[in-house]
C-alpha cells in the first residue's frame, strides 16, 4: 500500500498546485478519478467514480477567494476509497466530504497565515529586487504540494478512521477563528490601497461605490459602468469650463506696458 499511497500523495500534490497555479484543471475529479484508478489498478472504476464526483463538485468553485470544500481532496480520497473498499462511488462521496471540508478549512488557514509573506515582498519591491520576489513566489506552491501530499497520503496509508482522528485534532475554534480572520483580512489590503489612492477629492466616489453595493446591492460591473459614466462626465465638463486663457489678456497688458514705456 505504501507505494500506492505515495503515488496518490504525489498526484494530490500536483493537483493541489494546479488548483491555484496553472489551472489546467487536471485537479478536477474527472481527471483525478482515472489517474487514481490507474494507480490502484482499476481504471474503469476510477473513471466512473471521477464522473460521479465531478458532478458533486459542479459549481463548487472559489469565488472572490472564498474556498468551497476542497475538490482535489474530495476527488482523490473519494475515488481511492471507492476502489479500495469496493463501494459504490455515491457512497464514497460521504467518506470524501469530511476530508474535503477539513482541507477547505486548512487552505483558508494557509491563505490567512500567508499574509505576512507579502511584507517580505514589499521590502524586495522597495529595493527593486525582482529576484527576491521571484523566489518568494515559489514558496506557496511548494507548501501546497506538501500539504496536499500529506492530506492525501495519510488516509490512504492509515485508513480513513485513523486519518479522520488525526484531522479532528485541529481545534474547531482555531479553524473557525482563522477563517473569520481571513474574511476580514481584505480590509487591510483595501486600507493599504486607500493609503496610496485616497485624496479627499475622490472620497465622494468611494462613498457612492460603497452605498451602491451596501444598500442597493448592485454588482461591481454596474458600479464600474456608472463610475466610467461619472468620470467621463467630469472629464468633459472640466473641458467645457476651462476658463478663458488669461495669458492672452496678460500678454495684451504686457504689450501695453511696453508700449507705454516706449512713449
Amino acid at each position, binding site marked *: 500500500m505504501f507505494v500506492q499511497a505515495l503515488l496518490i500523495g504525489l498526484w494530490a500534490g500536483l493537483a493541489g498546485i494546479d488548483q*491555484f497555479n496553472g489551472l489546467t484543471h487536471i485537479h478536477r475529479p474527472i481527471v483525478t478519478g482515472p489517474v487514481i484508478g490507474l494507480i490502484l489498478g482499476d481504471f474503469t472504476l476510477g473513471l466512473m467514480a471521477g464522473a460521479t464526483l465531478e458532478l458533486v463538485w459542479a459549481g463548487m468553485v472559489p469565488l472572490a477567494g472564498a474556498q468551497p470544500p476542497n475538490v482535489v481532496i474530495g476527488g482523490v480520497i473519494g475515488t481511492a476509497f471507492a476502489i479500495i473498499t469496493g463501494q459504490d462511488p455515491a457512497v464514497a462521496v460521504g467518506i470524501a466530504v469530511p476530508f474535503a471540508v477539513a482541507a477547505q478549512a486548512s487552505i483558508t488557514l494557509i491563505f490567512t497565515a500567508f*499574509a505576512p509573506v507579502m511584507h517580505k515582498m514589499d521590502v524586495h519591491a522597495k529595493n527593486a529586487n525582482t529576484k527576491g520576489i521571484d523566489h518568494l513566489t515559489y514558496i506557496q506552491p511548494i507548501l501546497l504540494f506538501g500539504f496536499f501530499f500529506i492530506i492525501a497520503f495519510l488516509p490512504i496509508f492509515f485508513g480513513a478512521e485513523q486519518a479522520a482522528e488525526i484531522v479532528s485534532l485541529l481545534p474547531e475554534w482555531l479553524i473557525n477563528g482563522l*477563517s*473569520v480572520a481571513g474574511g476580514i483580512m481584505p480590509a487591510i489590503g483595501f*486600507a493599504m490601497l486607500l493609503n496610496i489612492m485616497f485624496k479627499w477629492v475622490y*472620497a465622494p466616489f468611494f462613498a457612492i461605490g460603497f452605498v451602491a453595493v451596501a444598500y442597493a446591492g448592485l454588482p*461591481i460591473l454596474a458600479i464600474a459602468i456608472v463610475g466610467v459614466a461619472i468620470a*467621463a462626465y467630469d472629464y468633459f465638463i472640466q473641458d467645457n469650463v476651462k476658463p478663458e486663457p488669461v495669458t492672452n489678456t496678460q500678454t495684451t497688458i504686457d504689450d501695453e506696458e511696453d508700449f507705454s514705456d516706449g512713449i
Partner: protein
Amino acid sequence: MEYNNQNEEVISNEIQDPSTEKVLTKKDLNKMVWRSLLLQSSFNYERMQGGGWTYSLIPGLKKIHTNDHDLSNALQDHMQFFNTHPFLITFVQGVILAMEENKEKRETIRGIKVALMGPLGGIGDALFWLTLLPITGGIAASLSAEGNVAGPIIFLVAFNLVHFFLRFFLMHYGYGMGTRAITVLKEGTKKVSRAASIVGMMVVGALVASYINLSLNWTIQAGEIPVDIQGEVIDAIMPGLLPLLYTMLCYWLLKKGRSPLTLIGMTIVLGLAGSILGVM
C-alpha cells in the same frame, strides 16, 4: 487646484526616467503570459493576488524601467491588493504594460488597474467557473460514466483550448488596446489620472462593501426577548457598517504609522476572539 494630499510620499508620482520608447516585444509579452500562470502563487487574504500579479509583470517592468527608482516605485505599486479572474488577467497585464511603457502617472495606472479588476472578476467567474467548467465537466462526466476514456481527454483539451487561447489572445489584445487608448487620451494627463482615480475609487468603495466578510452572528437574549445584533441593530443603522469601520480603522492605523503586520495580528486576534466568544 491644490488638493491637500498627504500621501504623495507613500509611492512617489515622480518619474525619474520619462523616456517612452517601445521596448516590449511580442516575445516579452508571451513570456509574461506564462508567468501569469502563477498569478495566485502568493494568494492570501490581505492582498489576494497582489504578489502573483507583480511576479507576472516583472520581465516587462524591468525592461521598461531601467532606472531602479522607477522600477521600485512600480513594483511597490503593483504589490497592493489585486484580485480578478485568473483567465482574464492577461488582458489587464496588456493594458497596464502599455501604460507603463508610456510612463503614465502611477495614479492613472493604479486607477485603471483597480477599475478593471473588479468587473473582470465577476465576468470571469460567470463565464469560466460557472459556465465553461460545468459544461465541459458535465459532458465529460457523461462520457466517463459510461466507462469511456474520452471523458477526461475531451475535458482537458476543450477546457484548455479556451483557457490558453484566452491567455495569449487577451495579452496582445489588451496591449494593443492600451497603446491605442493612450494615444487618444494623451493630451491631458492630469485629467486622465483624475478620471481613472474616480472609477478606481468607486470600485474600491464597492469592493469594501462586497469583499470583506465581517458580520456578527450574535443574538442577545434579553430576558425572553432575543435581539439579533447584526440583523436588527447594525443592518438597521447601515448595511456594510462593520466592513467599512474596520477598513477605516486599518487606514487610520496605517496613517498612524502602524505596520500592516500589526494589522494582520490584530485581525487574527479579532477572528479568534470572535470565534471563541461565538459571536462571529
